[in-house]
């Protein structure tokens, strides 16, 4: 690299930082145009830029910087006072400089397009307000300023005490430190053989030093969250201007350190939240005045450390979220029944906004509000092990609370055994662990053809066998099982493993290239015993096992991708039926002898009460029999019943067989074919009738008396 190239490269790097600072400073100046120190700092940056550009032979940049410097000079000498149009012009100057610099970084030359219009715009502020002929002579730099000039604050960042280091080097350091800890524990085993031996004291020291080293290396990987949150001064200002709203932005905790990868993962969710706050949250000036609020809305982004995680709060003092409207939309979109809706508390109501396809704003604006969004925010945060909560009070404002791990390099995991190998399950997906001994297995697990379901506190949980997923045949066969209940994008399932171990913090390493195509794994790690261990990709496992998982892409494509779990059954007449899993309590088989008559109803004694049976085929009229169906129903030894919880208590729906559990899009669907059917669906290429359980129950004459 030639000396010139080195100077240019250093200039580009330095300018990038300076421009980010300029954005912030200009927005701050707009709020307080009389902050002399801040104005001097802005002036100095632009002045330096102009000087360097002249030196490097970059005429377009130099011309721009010169025009900006003239305007800032007039502001500094109090000939002018900074107003909104001037701030906008100066911010456009920053954008133009940024654009030109990025061109130079690629082509080593300024882009051909002219910046004359912007130069004229900047000079226009000078002539329009004062009539003064713009300065053609360069302003003196603050350093040359006569004694008595105001004190110039140092640039916000000091470059002297920092070095730029390639992240790959830091990653290697992390690996080596991790290995050092493992070697240390091997020495620890030797030291433990003889408590007073010569190894004991050095081992204690080694442990302390390597723990401190690990912390230091970890800290070195962190960058200030301000590289992301700091940008919102400018972004929020521009957005507010576009929306015709007044806004005061307050960003706190910009120096909180987070992992680079976490910072990147935060950018889009935060942008979304800030847009929402400005567009939907904060009212127009007229509305605010009418509500007796200050005209300028308040947006606050606060970052802090707590409990080993990074917390961010995005709060506004706007109109708040209309929880009732959210619930009404959810009911209209069949995400909830009216009955379920009444049981939600306020937190649950607000949490509906994270559901795919729900947005309270009716009209689509350029800023936000396309009916997708909050679900994408939630999903992308969950992908990095984060979570989001919302609190809101009508007329007073909304607050989003985000929590994310400090680093993605370390992840809490649960160790699980399957066959003779152990695997790591990211704890972010973990809900609970259920141990089942051989005796309780039959009692708690329903086998529905290929799908197994666990009865857990009155609900049916689909089970995924890890050994089957991995094609592993080395499973222990003593009958006992452990079900790890996992949550992936809001969908819950049980992963069947042989045993589980402890939860540990694991250093995450990428999958070797030759294994990237294998979907079951998200990465690798090294556990305390020094063995390489695979980290399971929970969403991929759920997907491979047929448990629908909505991806951000799906959610973005349409609300139609909301899926419902369906239990598929064959009707006594051979047709295919479906019942929503959410409505199913249990799957039962009754012997024919158990069936008794009570009035016109067939009933069985069940769970200490009386369970009325509904013969589905008898109640579904007008179905033409095909040859297959007309050939007669084989008489089975028992009656299969889907026990559902209805408005009148438990009801058993009699079917010929219970076949499968699938997840299907809630829409599209065909209108009902006949009474007693809620809708027709096509599942696996076969027409399937989704039963309207309420209508069937009523048609069977089952009343509240039961």
């Amino acid at each position, binding site marked *: 690299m030639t000396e010139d190239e080195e100077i240019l490269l250093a200039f580009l790097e330095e300018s990038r930082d300076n421009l980010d600072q300029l954005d912030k400073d200009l927005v701050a100046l707009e709020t307080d145009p009389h902050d002399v120190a801040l104005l001097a700092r802005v002036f100095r940056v632009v002045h330096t830029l102009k000087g360097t550009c002249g030196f490097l032979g970059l005429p377009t940049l130099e011309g721009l910087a010169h025009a900006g410097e003239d305007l800032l000079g007039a502001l500094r000498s109090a000939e002018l006072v900074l107003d909104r149009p001037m701030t906008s012009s100066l911010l456009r100057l920053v954008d133009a400089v940024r654009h030109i610099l990025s061109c130079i970084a690629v082509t080593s030359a300024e882009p051909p397009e002219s910046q004359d219009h912007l130069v004229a715009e900047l000079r226009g502020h000078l002539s329009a307000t004062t009539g003064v002929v713009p300065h053609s002579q360069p302003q003196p730099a603050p350093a040359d300023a006569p004694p008595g000039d105001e004190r110039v604050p140092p640039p916000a960042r000091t470059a002297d005490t920092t070095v730029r280091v390639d992240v790959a080097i830091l990653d290697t350091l992390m*690996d*080596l430190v*991790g*290995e050092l800890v*493992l070697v240390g524990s091997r020495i620890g085993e030797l030291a433990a053989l003889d408590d007073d031996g010569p190894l004991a004291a050095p081992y204690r020291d080694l442990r302390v030093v390597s723990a401190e080293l690990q912390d230091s290396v970890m800290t070195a990987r962190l960058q200030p969250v301000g590289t992301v949150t700091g940008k919102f001064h400018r972004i929020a200002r521009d957005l507010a201007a576009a929306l015709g709203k007044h806004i005061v932005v307050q960003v706190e905790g910009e120096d909180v350190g987070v992992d680079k990868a976490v910072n990147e993962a935060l950018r889009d969710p935060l942008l979304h939240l800030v847009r929402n706050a400005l567009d939907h949250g904060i009212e127009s000036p007229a509305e605010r005045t009418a509500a007796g609020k200050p005209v300028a809305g308040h947006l606050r982004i606060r970052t802090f450390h707590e409990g080993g995680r990074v917390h961010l709060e995005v709060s506004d003092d706007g109109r708040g979220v209309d929880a009732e409207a959210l619930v009404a939309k959810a009911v209209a979109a069949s995400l909830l029944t009216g009955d379920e809706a009444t049981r939600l508390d306020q937190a649950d109501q607000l949490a509906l906004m994270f559901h795919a396809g729900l947005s309270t704003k009716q009209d689509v604006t350029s800023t936000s509000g396309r009916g997708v969004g909050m679900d994408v925010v939630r999903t992308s945060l969950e992908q990095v092990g984060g979570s989001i909560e919302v609190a809101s009070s009508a007329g007073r404002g909304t607050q989003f609370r985000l929590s994310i791990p400090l680093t993605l390099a370390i992840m809490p995991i649960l160790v699980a055994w399957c066959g*003779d*190998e152990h695997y790591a399950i990211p704890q972010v997906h973990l809900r609970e662990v259920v141990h089942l001994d051989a005796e309780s297995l039959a009692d708690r697990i329903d086998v529905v053809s290929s799908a197994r379901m666990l009865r857990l506190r009155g609900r049916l949980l689909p089970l995924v066998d890890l050994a089957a997923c*991995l*094609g*592993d045949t080395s499973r222990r066969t003593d009958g006992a099982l452990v079900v790890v209940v996992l949550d992936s994008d809001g969908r819950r399932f049980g992963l069947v493993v042989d045993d589980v171990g402890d939860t540990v913090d694991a250093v995450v*390493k990428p999958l*070797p*290239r*030759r*294994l990237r*195509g*294998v*979907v*079951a*794994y998200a990465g*690798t790690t*090294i556990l305390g015993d*020094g*063995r*390489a*261990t*695979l980290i399971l990709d929970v969403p991929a496992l759920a997907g491979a096992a047929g448990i629908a998982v909505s991806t951000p892409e799906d959610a973005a494509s349409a609300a139609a991708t909301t899926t419902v779990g369906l239990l598929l059954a064959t009707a006594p007449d051979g047709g295919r039926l479906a019942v929503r899993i959410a409505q199913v309590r249990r799957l039962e088989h009754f012997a024919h002898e158990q069936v008794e008559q009570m009035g016109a109803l067939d009933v069985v004694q069940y769970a200490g009460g009386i369970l009325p049976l509904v013969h589905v085929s008898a109640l579904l009229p007008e179905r033409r029999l095909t040859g297959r169906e007309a050939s007669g129903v084989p008489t089975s030894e028992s009656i299969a019943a889907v026990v559902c919880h209805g408005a009148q208590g438990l009801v058993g729906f009699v079917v010929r067989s219970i076949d499968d559990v699938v997840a299907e899009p809630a829409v599209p669907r065909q209108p009902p074919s006949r009474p007693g059917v809620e809708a027709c669906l096509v599942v696996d290429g076969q027409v399937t009738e989704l039963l309207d359980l309420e209508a069937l129950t009523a048609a069977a004459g089952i009343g509240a008396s039961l």
Partner: protein
Amino acid sequence: MTSVVAPAPAAQVTLCTFVVGDLLLGLPVEHVVEVVRGERLTRVPLAPGSVVGLLNLRGRIVSAVDARVRLGLDRRDGDRECAHIIITLDDEQVSLVVDREGEVVALESATRYDVPETVPPEIRRLLVSAYRRDEALLLVLDPHRVLTVD
């Protein structure tokens, strides 16, 4: 084809040799980082057939490719003794699992042969050249081809 062999004075190649089945094989030493033995492997279900597992090489996770599978021999029996030839390829370390490591040998380019026609095609496609070594034929592998995993 001996005419195409460069007659440069210092025309030597240094090969790291190893044995797989009854084959004597070699790789240019510049690709080989080290040879390790007796490492515990973590099995990887669903992985391509030639990937026998993962090993922890001082904090680095390395995939182990079974040379037997790549050469069309029977898959390695888990308990059988083996050696890992650690190779750097495209900025990543990979282990080629072989039956037994051999010595590092320096050979005159003049003793280089083309791969004999008698070598079965499934092995031939992984080779770049061959050398006469005492009584045996030393087959030189192409590191990219032998570590390609389908």
